[in-house]
């Protein structure tokens, strides 16, 4: 009996792997480099896991934020760990450091960076190990409805830092494997919401760099037709 059960488990594991592999192998990608299809058919800009850049940015005729204000959301039970939580302070205002190249780039485009809003920590929810972009959008919707996070203004960028152990996916791409962070937007009753999703990275500098770049790319290219 145990052998049969073990066999079934192995077989099911194989089936899951095969299905996952099929998904992975057949991931559609938009023509633009550093973009991915999101979970409802649109495109989202990613920070590749290897931080590759695609050359000088060009303007594509769409909106650019006039200002950008970071609202940090630390999501998942893993942030409750004292050691992990200690990293939060370095992530609260990702463009604030002296000489920050992304801050300079934003100023070059006359984008003001506002004082970061107070952070939100949510350790109690999101206990599942996998979250995709729809989960993030639903979470933002719930938080806005419950007023757990401030309502958006034109420059608000919600930066969602996922706790260790939470695996992010976007379309068919995997956080940490295909991207270090991404940004997207969604229209809810509160208005148009711009957000960044940053999977946890063991290296604090890499973690911060991913968030900073995605934050700056949100300001420069909030709706996919700005600077990229």
């Amino acid at each position, binding site marked *: *009996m145990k052998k*049969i*059960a073990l066999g*079934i488990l192995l*077989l*099911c594991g194989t*089936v899951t792997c095969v*299905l*996952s592999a*099929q*998904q992975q192998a*057949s*991931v*559609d990608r*938009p023509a633009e480099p550093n973009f991915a*299809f*999101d*979970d*409802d*058919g*649109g*495109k*989202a800009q990613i920070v590749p896991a290897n931080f590759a850049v695609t050359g000088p940015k060009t303007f594509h005729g769409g909106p650019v934020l*006039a*200002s950008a*204000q970071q609202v940090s959301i630390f999501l998942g039970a893993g942030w409750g760990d004292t050691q992990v939580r200690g990293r939060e302070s370095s992530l609260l*205002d990702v*463009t*604030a*450091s*002296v000489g920050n190249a992304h*801050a*300079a780039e934003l*100023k070059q485009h*006359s984008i*003001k*960076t*506002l*004082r*970061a809003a107070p952070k939100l920590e949510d350790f109690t929810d999101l206990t599942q190990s996998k979250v*995709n*972009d*729809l989960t993030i*959008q*639903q979470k933002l919707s719930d938080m806005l409805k419950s007023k757990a996070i401030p309502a958006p*203004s*034109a*420059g*608000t960028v919600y930066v969602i830092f996922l706790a260790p152990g939470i695996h992010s996916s976007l*379309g*068919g791409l995997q956080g940490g494997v295909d991207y270090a962070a991404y940004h*997207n*937007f*969604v*229209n*809810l*009753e509160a208005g*148009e919401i711009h957000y960044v999703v940053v999977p946890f990275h063991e290296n604090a500098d890499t973690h911060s760099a991913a968030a900073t770049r995605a934050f700056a790319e949100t300001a420069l290219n909030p*709706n*996919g037709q700005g600077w990229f």
Partner: protein
Amino acid sequence: MMQSLRRSSLLLAVLLLVVPTTLFAQCGVERWSVKTGTDADIGLVHLTSSSNTTIAAMRAPAAPSPIPANNRVAPLETTQWVINATLTLYKLESDSDYHLVLQDANGLTMIGEIPSPTCVGSGSPFLSGITNARNEFNARFTATTSFQTANIPVKVTGVGMFDFLHGQTGVAPNGIELHPILDIVFNPGSSPDFALSASPTSLTVTQGSSGTSTISTSVSNGFNSSVALSISGLPSGVTASFSPTSIAAPGSGSSTLTFTASSTATTGTFNTTVTATGGGLTHTTTIPLTVNAATSPNFAISASPTSLSVAAGGTGTSTISTTVSGGFNSAVSLSASGLPSGVTAAFSPTSIAAPGSGSSTLTFTASSTAAAGTSTITINASGGSVSHSTTVSLTITSGGTTTQIIGNPGFENGSTNTAPWTLTSGVINNSTSEPPHAGSWDAWMDGYGTTHTDTALQQVTIPAAATAATLTFFLHIDTAETSTTTAFDTLTVQVRNSSGTVLSTLATFSNLNHATGYSQKSFNLLSFKGQTIQIFFKGVEDSTLQTSFVLDDVNLNVTQ
């Protein structure tokens, strides 16, 4: 052993079924209620009839702005459309939708989406159609998470929905989609069929009464069968009956559907679904049924504005409005009480004519001797044995000869015509990131987080005869600086002569003065009477950590 094997096999089968389901079982978020028919305006959608259209026609209207999150934009989002097109591509999205790219003969495309029925609220009138379309699609194709090519003629029926443009494959320029698709016919031809409709398409009944709708069927392409009728989705306390209960072969005819609401029927609007079945085919139509409570006659009263200021010797008005409910039918007389001395009130007209719904203009007239101050005026309305009241806050201000001499004081001329202000680039702002104190615009100085200086200047002349001259402005400061002791970023307010020489520094603000909201600042400039001066604001920011100085409503009030 065999029993264990059977159990294990069953377990395996269940797991094999569950694994792919759990991989994809997630629903969308953005405009999801509109996409699946649980939005606030679902009652506006006409599902009992459909209109033929083309992809080109659907792409022609401009996208609405803004696109409402939970409401519909008529007529594209309230009409059931039928489009003949070619299905070129299809894909299963992570939100469980089937994403279909539809193309016309000229290569124009738009998107059609078939949501998963598991993502549609049970009360949605779209549910049966979505289930139908999903089954029709599944019978023909197997959608996966990658785009597949179909290139097959289709006739699709669905409701329009403006999506936000975000790079979707096949998206129309205005974002219009058929979302959801409620029916899809591949290689549409001439198979026997029947159509179902209701008239009226929606009904309202009051508790204790009844209402009817005529259900009609028409046949095409040789359809020849009786059509059985049934209904679902009735609220508690409402019954429905068809007369006759079925349409005799060949299937063309009508039946009277009667809804009867008891005195305790549940009130509200409910989507009832009529299902017609015959000849192996099933069609449905939705009839929104509203059950109203039996109510007593009443009316409501309101005032607009609810507060106003009147200068002594002047007049002011507020509009008093009444609305009736529950069959109220009487004239409503109006009166005012609580008037301060020297103030009179007059209504025009003096009463609202029967049935009691309308408006009257209330005019306050203040004598020149009316005392300054604020009073609460009570507006009384009565008619048909019902009385209600509302209040208006009335402020009487004293007369005077004070003149405000700053031009464009609230920066409301916008960014293209800033005169008579002289400002550095990028200061005039209407972004909600730094909202104004009033109006739409403000002067947002600094806020870059790098070395930067912004200035704002306006030249004015204070008359020599002035007896008072007061500069006021509203200032908001926010900062990323954390110091509680060091002024890293500053805003200096100065009076300069017409050559730019500093005559007086009125104040210096800094990151240390940051606070939420605006505070008003005030300075006495009477000492500059008889002079032409410059009001000068200068914001200086150091190399890091932004501080924003936001000015609005700069006034220089001169009394003579």
